[in-house]
């Protein structure tokens, strides 16, 4: 059976509700369309069902299981939708034992997927760079593999609580906008009302940062492989200190 939902976590919990209510075996469902899917079902994002399901899950499984379930959902693996469903069904069945059951294949994979997401979101707390715009917004463009904006936004709300800022995930076209102490997160098509002129002193501080970055390394200990391990090449284009180009957005 092919299950279609809108891609949001709200929609996903609605799908879970449908599966549990109709007692559909996870082995019979698919979140990708293929030749063998004769039946197909479209799930609506009903906010009441979403609220019901989230409080139901919070009551029924451990915080750790819930955490893994959500992080697995945010990952970019092809089979993550089905895997997270299988996992949460298992967790509902064995709510106490599942966290100790590290050798089950489903648990191993969920651990792997959710770890990937947690790791990337932690990484971006560090390698995200803000540029100051003329309109006093700090703007950051990122290209993460997974959907991490919901996970990292709160960190910056706490840290830069008196500034206005935008974090824009170009890969998923998602943005977190923090203005006048209000945070909103959502999918976007484009930024129409924002003027992207850089503040003049911005260039200066970028120069200082590049200079600092160059000066702090010990030439005799150069180790490019180690650096790339920590800071993979795919992230470099938004990193002021090593991106091989002039400042732009």
């Amino acid at each position, binding site marked *: 059976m092919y299950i279609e939902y809108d891609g949001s976590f709200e929609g996903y919990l609605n799908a879970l509700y449908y599966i549990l209510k109709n007692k559909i075996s996870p082995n019979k469902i698919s979140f990708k369309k293929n030749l063998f899917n004769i039946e197909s079902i479209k799930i609506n994002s009903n906010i009441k069902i979403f609220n019901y399901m989230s409080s139901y899950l919070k009551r029924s499984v451990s915080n750790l299981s819930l955490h893994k379930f959500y992080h697995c959902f945010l990952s970019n693996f092809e089979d993550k939708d089905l895997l997270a469903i299988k996992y949460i069904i298992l967790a509902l069945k064995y709510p106490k*034992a599942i*966290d*100790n*059951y*590290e*050798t089950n294949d489903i648990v*191993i994979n969920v651990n792997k997927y959710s770890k990937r997401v947690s790791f990337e979101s*932690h990484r971006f*707390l*560090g*390698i*995200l*760079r*803000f*540029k*100051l715009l003329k309109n006093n917004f*700090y703007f*950051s463009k990122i290209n993460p593999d997974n959907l991490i904006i919901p996970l990292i936004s709160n*960190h910056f709300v*706490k*840290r*830069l*609580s*008196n*500034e206005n800022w935008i974090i824009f995930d170009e890969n998923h076209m998602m943005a977190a906008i923090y203005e006048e102490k209000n945070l909103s997160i959502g999918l976007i098509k484009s930024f129409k009302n924002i003027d992207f002129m850089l503040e003049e*002193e911005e260039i200066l*501080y970028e*120069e*200082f*940062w590049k*200079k*600092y*970055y*160059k*000066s*702090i*390394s*010990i*030439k*005799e*200990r*150069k*180790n*490019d*492989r*180690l*650096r790339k*391990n*920590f*800071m993979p090449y795919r992230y470099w284009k938004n*990193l*002021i*200190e090593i991106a091989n180009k002039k400042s732009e957005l």
Partner: protein
Amino acid sequence: MILKDKIKILAESAKYDVSCSSSGSSRANSKNGIGNASIGGICHSWSEDGRCISLLKILFSNNCIFDCAYCINRRSNDIERATFTVDEMVNLTINFYKRNYIEGLFLSSGIYSNPNETMNSLYMVAKILREKYKFNGYIHLKAIPGADPLLIKKAGFYADRMSVNIELPSEKSLKILAPQKSKSSLLVPMKSLSENILDLNRFNVKNHKFVPAGQSTQLIVGASPESDYKIIKLSENLYDKFKLKRVYYSAFLKVNEDNRLPNKNSSLLREHRLYQADWLLRFYKFKAYEIFNKGNYFLDEKLDPKLFWALNNFDLFPVEINRCDFDTLIRVPGIGVKSAYKIFNMRREKSINFDDLKKINVVLKRAKYFITCNGRYMDFSLKDPDKIKQAIYLENKGNLIPLFQDNLPVISIR
């Protein structure tokens, strides 16, 4: 001198300080304030040498009246000199921080006129950051040896971490290489810091703690003849007596021509093994005398210290995975603290076999000589420590941690 040049000179002068950690302090943002400190620490970039950049690690000044043999900034060296102003330093920190380049500031300095004046500048930077700008990011300050203890104490109320570098593992070596420093000029501020940390943090007052992330220190390995045992024993004392959070080791790199110094750079692998041994002290409940028992004074560069210990104490093995206690489990080579926890949790549900161990990423290649599952060895394992040692040397041959090539070493300090 323009600011950009100052940044270049004073960052280059600071690069030999190893520490860049921003963990251990949790500081909340305040009303109208900037930033917070995250308990786990955050790395913001990695430099060309692969070391993490977490803090703006820089010297206030590289003018120095001291003349330590190993230090690039010593008085007798002919290098470019620069000194920041307090405002420049504060401004740079705030602007880097808001752009998320850094987690905070790690400020050290050459002793440019006298210890008190130098310490006062560091203190002023921290004070203005905290009070005028309400900056709640991480601040690591160097405690300048010889400065007034009262001034160091005052600075401690603004800093998250402070450090005094112990520089060399013995007083004798200090006398030869850093004649203006003495054991007491280094240990006295360390001791008073550790007493103040204990004393002033008894009351749980948020955001007004004294050096909440504790103190750390650093020493140079291989500039003087001390053994690994002596170094690790010193670290153990510092951890036990002064409650230090970290001791950093830095393989000697020759930056000055000086006949008091060895001709060769010290090996990076030795530095690495010392860090591993240090890890055993802090997380695996080892004592220095255990690691070095049976008359060894140096670690085996070809074996990690845990393996080195296990082979020297082979009569304590094998360990039965399904029954042994936690402290025994973490002493098995190939099993870390994390996998030990996993094994403990899993044991509640089922009896563990070798397949399970593989699935939770225990390094069976190492562990297999030292464990049994339900009374059985994994395969026909070697039961003679010398033969195991040979087998492991053979395995490692050719791929001896590619990270550490020969003659590729690092240094220290101020």
